């Protein structure tokens, strides 16, 4: 199991590299400084539903239509990620995660390492119960793009850039450690 988890993470990173989407791994202790090195100010975000990690106070975590309009970066949590495709699954929340992930030029999705699933069938396994429960989600892969104007342009209606942050959380750290023992 541990070996596979490590592989999913590697494959996720490889898929993102193919998409030319930068990815940075971090842990709860260094999350703030990592995020700071990635974003462009001003930054809006929606609360991260992860233990031991929350948005730094320089992130406006109560965005309004006005602050959304002027923000350069949006930070939101991803429910999980799909290794094969380099995709992040973004939930729609009453706090406006959908908007924050969509309107700013740079979107920074934060996904826990333990939430990287290997492939589309495993993703759908998770999505089934979520959607039947009334939730909505976006499988987002790379920045928004269009070829309608005669050449590929990034940033059509949505973000021009995406920078993924992978959070090595307790579960993943634990698994990694077990993994090392196993080997």
């Amino acid at each position: 199991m541990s070996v596979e988890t490590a592989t999913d993470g590697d494959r996720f990173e490889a898929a993102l590299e193919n998409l030319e989407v930068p990815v940075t791994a971090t842990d709860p202790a260094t999350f703030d400084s990592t995020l700071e090195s990635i974003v462009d100010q001003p930054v809006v975000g929606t609360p991260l539903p992860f233990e031991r990690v929350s948005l730094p106070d320089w992130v406006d975590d109560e965005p309004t239509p006005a602050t959304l309009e002027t923000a350069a970066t949006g930070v939101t949590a991803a429910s999980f990620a799909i290794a094969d495709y380099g995709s992040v699954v973004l939930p729609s929340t009453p706090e406006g995660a959908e908007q924050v992930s969509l309107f700013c030029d740079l979107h920074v999705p934060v996904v826990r390492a333990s939430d990287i699933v290997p492939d589309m069938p495993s993703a759908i396994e998770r999505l089934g119960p979520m959607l039947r429960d009334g939730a909505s989600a976006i499988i987002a892969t790379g920045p928004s793009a269009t070829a309608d104007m005669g050449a590929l342009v990034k940033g059509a209606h949505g973000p021009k850039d995406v920078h993924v942050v992978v959070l090595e959380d307790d579960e993943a750290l634990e698994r990694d450690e077990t993994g090392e023992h196993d080997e």
Partner: protein
Amino acid sequence: MSKTDRETKADHIRHLLETEGPAVEANTMGFNQGRYDSVADLEDYEELKDEARTIKEGAIERLPELIDAVTETVEENGGTVYLAEDAADANRYIREVASENDAERLVKSKSMTSEELEVNEALEREGVDVVETDLGEWVLQVADEAPSHIVAPAIHKSREEIARLFNSQFDPGEPLETAEELTMFARERLGEQIAEADIGMTGANFITADSGSLMLVTSEGNARKTAVVPDTHIAVAGVEKIVPTVEDLAPFIELIGRSGTGQDITSYVSLLTPPVDSPIVDPDDPETPFADREDDREFHLVLIDNGRMTMREDDQLRETLYCIRCSACANTCANFQSVGGHAFGGETYTGGIATGWEAGVHGYDSAAEFNDLCTGCSRCVEACPVKIDIPWINTVVRDRLNRGGEASRFDFLYDELVPDEEATGAIDRQKRLFGNYETLAKLGSATAPVSNLIGGLGPVRSLAERFVGIDSRRPLPTFQRETLVDWFDARGPNVAAADADREVVLYPDTYTNYVDVDRGKAAVRVLEALSVHVQIPSVPGSGRAPLSQGMIDTADAKASRVYAALAEHIDAGRDIVVIEPSDLAMFRNEYEKLLPERSFERLRNSSYEVLEYVYGCLENGADPAALRTDGPPIAYHAHCQQRTLGLDRYTRAVFDDLGYDVLESDVECCGMAGSFGYKSQYYELSMDVGDRLAEQFSTSEARDRLVVASGTSCGDQLEDLLAREASHPVEALDPNSPLAR
């Protein structure tokens, strides 16, 4: 079709070839190559397609029940469902929703179903401002043009044209030039329009009955904004979009982008369960945090019948409802690559499957406009993620059109020449002529060389052009007085059954028997060199010619006669070897629809393409040295239907094993496609398609090679295009080959 109609059609096609052709060609060929590359990464591609097909078959089977289920789920979620009988009914409902909301502006994301309804016009008549937010659709809205492709609606427009359009319409301070500038300009303008919209309208690629969710496949992000920014969301979708559960979406998510534009997955696959939890973005209340809002969203799902439930009851058209509108069948189609959807399309839909959609939702007149452009090359069949037999749908619609047309006063004279099995005298003369090619060939051969002399006379050619539309720029085939069957009768086999490793019946297809007798003789010599006992009984034409003209009854009768003539040979354990790939494709594919199941299977399992057979002999120990191994380097073009059957690899393998230096074309089709390239209204299109092949065979690396093609039409087309001799692979391998070393 009258001469004038043919001329008008030819003019229209010529115009598109000159104007939109280059942009359409570059884009569709890019998508098509992207598809090949992207599906190659899927280990379980075939299984995914099977799974997708099974899900769609099941969903359409259970459709009435699923409509009820989705209605219940969406209403439980807090939305409203309206089942609209037709476009007028849907538009009436949508106008009501707009008026109840005092809507001044409705923003839309791309939806072909909404194009089918012409909902924009319906709303604009009521004073609602409708804004398309997909960049391609917006370009067309500004230009006042129709989509030319179901996924990338503005592919027929180049960047330069879009720049000219924007600069003249909007007069931006600095003239716009690059794709980046054009995109950012559009993004900004449309962003403002979305912010101030009262209603957002989307389509849906799929709807799940268990959760009431919409799946939207997009890249730009406009559909996401359209669905969440305004407080009212209307989704319009054909009833066929419903699948039972969220889990059923899995294969489609993996297949749809790859099949269409060649992307492994598009930027956004939205899975919305409306009314969604996201807050609205209210420009009139910019300071209230999203988290503090209490929004009451409104959601309307408008399900469209508009002929679909009738299609579901129609055994031939039902498959159309499995279509997920990925566009693979358009991108892979050689004719579509040249002219795009403004020729290859009806009122709303474009590409190969459009025939089924148009016949089903708008009626046969709309399908008749472009149905002929499907030549039955079958390249789309393997590309379709739900495995629809798109050429068959085109054939069926053509057959129905043949029966609904009008009779002409010449037809009783013509009946003598074209003794087909078609019940009514309503069918187009040109179609009947080509559909009865076997009779003509028989006659031509019996009266050769006089028939060839007459056929070559100017006045005869111009009559042929006027009366049936045979383009006089095309050289006609030269009929041989001695048919292959006669030649073989007189000559007899050189390998006796008693000495042979195996016994075959070489199928004397119409073209080999009456026109290209030489390739038949070469096939005999090649097979005999491999210790095969050959017989050539007289067997009727396969029915390919009438089928391609939509004359299904005639093809059906031929299939029965072919089977009757071959059954005893199959019983005796003989293999049936076929030279012409389009005839083999009849035996292996279309006969499934024309013969009883057991007969079809027996013939299919006993029949082989000639090079496939040679390959089998060599694999089983036949001596390759018995064939010609010192021939010249080869430029090889496989036949479209042969490729769909997966048989081109045998020709390649045989040439490789014998040490030939082979350069192979990678175009989808030569453009001739049987009779298509002879028709005056399509001659130029046929040549345009052929040019892609000609280019590949005219490079410095290819131009001195021996041109080899597996199909009759491909050979003729290559000879016309290159003014070089084209041979069949068996002629290159013939130990007595007269071809230059």
